[in-house]
């Protein structure tokens, strides 16, 4: 049996993870293709249908301008998920790079890099996020336009604050792997350093990285929601999940559906991603015998 087949066999045993993967897959499909079937515009204002509960015409109800919440949740999901995965990509790239360099080099480089990692870990994230957004949002918006500028900014900022766990994991893996016999053998055969890292060590260190990455996606979605909830981040008419919650909070008393659906979307996404990550950890752990 191939290693991938073995991993899949183990993953299947984790019932929660499988269920979560199905739910998550459905949500991604809905967000990607839903707007093709549910063609109600996201910003159609209809004062005759304000604050309506779920109905056939508006399955998720409407907000106080009579805008359809299903359409807005679907649209917002695209942004929230895109931010989540893109930020994860940034975090994993930086984390693997830093972790690999630290793990391969001994002495001052390793120490310095770990100092930097510790420094980033000790920075208060949210205040710094706010500061950076204020400093650079306009400059970036001038360069690439408002919406894309904010997207790049948020992805970069969230990504650059979440690579530390990955870096530490990768470094630890490298420390144990680089002393293993098969690495010694490759080195004895005259393989270059880059080749040893890319071909021999990295594939074996990838398991924990994938797990950490899945958790990063969830963290990034929450961070984007936090920013939007604070009224920062995307322009106010872009209905990300966090922004929908922010708009809904004053009306919780009498229009709970407005907050419940985007809230449920965030909740389900983060929860399922965490379970899938859990399942992946079990599946990819080579030392686990079953």
């Amino acid at each position, binding site marked *: 049996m191939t290693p991938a087949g073995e991993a899949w066999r183990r993953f299947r045993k984790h019932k929660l993870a499988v269920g979560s993967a199905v739910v998550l897959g459905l949500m991604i499909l809905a967000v990607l293709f839903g707007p093709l079937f549910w063609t109600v515009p996201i910003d*159609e204002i209809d004062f005759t249908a304000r604050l309506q509960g779920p109905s056939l015409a508006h399955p998720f109800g409407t907000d106080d301008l009579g*805008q359809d919440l299903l359409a807005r949740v679907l649209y917002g999901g695209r942004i929230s998920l895109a931010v989540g995965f893109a930020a994860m990509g940034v975090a994993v790239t930086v984390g693997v790079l830093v972790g690999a360099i630290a793990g391969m080099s001994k002495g001052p480089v390793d120490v310095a890099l770990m100092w930097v990692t510790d420094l980033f870990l000790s920075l208060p994230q949210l205040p710094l996020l706010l500061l950076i957004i204020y400093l650079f949002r306009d400059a970036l918006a001038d360069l690439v336009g408002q919406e894309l500028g904010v997207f790049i900014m948020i992805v970069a900022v969230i990504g650059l604050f979440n690579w530390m766990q990955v870096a530490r994991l990768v470094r630890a893996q490298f420390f144990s792997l680089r002393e293993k016999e098969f690495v010694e053998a490759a080195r004895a055969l005259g393989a270059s350093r880059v080749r040893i890292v890319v071909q021999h060590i990295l594939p074996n260190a990838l398991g924990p990285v994938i797990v950490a990455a899945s958790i990063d996606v969830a963290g990034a979605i929450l961070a984007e929601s936090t920013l939007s909830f604070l*009224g920062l981040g995307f322009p*106010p008419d872009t209905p990300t999940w966090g922004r929908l919650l922010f*708009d809904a909070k004053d009306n919780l*008393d*009498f229009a709970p559906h407005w907050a419940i659906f985007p809230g449920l979307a965030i909740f389900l996404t983060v929860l399922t991603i965490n379970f899938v990550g859990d399942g992946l950890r079990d599946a990819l752990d080579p030392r686990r015998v079953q």
Partner: protein
Amino acid sequence: MGEDDLRQMIGRVKNGSLSRRGFMRRMAAVGLTAPMATQLLAIAGAGSAQAQGSVPAYRPTRRGGGGQLKVLYWQASTLLNPHFAVGTTNQDASRVFYEPLAGWAADGTLHPVLAAEIPSIENGGLSADGRSVTWKLKRGVKWHDGQDFSADDVIFNWEYSRNPAVAAVTSGSYRDVNAVKVDDHTVRVEFAQPTPFWADAFVAATGQLIPKHLFQAFNGANSRDAPTNLRPVGTGAYRFVSFLPGDTLRAELNPNYHMNNRPFFDTLEVKGGGDAVSAARAVLQTGDFDYAWNLQVEDELLKRLEAANRGRVNIVESGGIEFVQLNCTDPNREIDGERSHISTQHPAFSDPAVRQAMALLIDRNALEQFIYGRGGPATANFLNNPPRFTSRNMRWEFNIARANEILDAAGWVRGRDGIRAKNNVRLRFIYQTSVNAPRQRTQAVYKQAAQRAGIDLELKSVTASVFFSSDVANPDTFTKFYADMQMYTTTMPQADPQRFMNQYVSWELSTRANSWQGRNIVRWRNDEYDAAFRAAESEIDPVKRAALFIRMNDLIVGSNHIIPLVKRPTVSGSVNNLRHVLSGWDGTFWALQDWWRET
């Protein structure tokens, strides 16, 4: 033509001995247009700033016996000296104990408190040249410690406030005037120039009077050390019991109060803290408190709370207005490191057709009905109150089809993406405001309508603490206005529009040279407006002065650089049986002595 002539003439129109047409002709002869003359007739009688029956009747027939009055301020007060009171909460808390010579009633007229009467030309209080006003003080008024109140106290307040070492926040009202003691119960305030708005010193919030005998030792750099800053001794209907800064203020009935049968309540508690929504609940839903100040809560929610039938929401007219500004200058060109520089012109808004279309594209009716509710009646005017200054010449309309026609006629052609353009200028605007739920709703409504007319609005919302800050380094402040359009509420500090209408005079332009402290943020310049403002500054005739302010309103609104949306009256809550006297032109407690409870 003097004021008396004018009044006589209006009187003759009223009793029928002069026809309206004859009146118009005579007014035209002195240079006033027909609509203005009509207006004069309408506002006559309210022309001068005097109160008659503007305060509801007080019915209790004896002092005391009313039990406790509990008031909730969701922003707590921190100190009780009116001359150091920054912000409404401290001014209001001081007002429980201290009184001015006169206060502003809800209709924007003066109502005497420590003055025996309101000065007027008829009673000799006002000089005909507008250079002085003489106040007669009420006799027999005593401070809470038993000392007599006299003209010396009034003069002391003038000396104290204008003393730079004291650093009083009220100094603006006293610095440029001269106060003279005529006798023990008469004070004259003198001005360097003819001053039509004479009711500033010793009036309302900045006019609260503190006792000379307790403060004279602290008339200097030690002013902040006075024990009476936290333990006030005033002339008010309630006297001091205890005060926890940032929390609770307690007071009790003043048995020697100078007005008959007042006050009604035996004790008073002003509790601070919490937020607007919980304050609304405490009064309207549970009835734990009798009155809650400044309920900045969505009307939808207030209506639901009112349904509990314990309390009601009080909407009091004032001068606040929510409006949109269309930048006169170009926010995207930098000149000497300054954007929105006054030497530039906005590429699109310099075309009157675009501005007219923008004014047609906002549905004020929807704003009033679905977003602001009772807290925001739609309006076409920038200057809405007091009623004698309200223009009847302005109309608002929501008409997408007409906006499209106007833009078509002006040569703005739709591009492939549906956005209009002309000479490489696209109708794509950045529209900024502060983070605030009703404002974001308004942005969405405006954006949708504009889209249908081929105009793309890019929405931007800035945290309120940044948007309204005076931080010179921050590009997002409303005074810098580095955007094409912006929206906020501007408030009127007094029942007189002079300090309100200076927002469009050319010498108030907001620029880097004055650290963006200038009041003319939209950077609009108009010679006729400037001239009208200058004239109003020294026009003694109240009727002509009102006409000048109305003309100013029509000029700025007619330019469409300013698009008024909704009025913002003050909103508070009270239990059903509380009878209070409120005013949008003065503090909450301006007539606290007249509050009582129906049983």
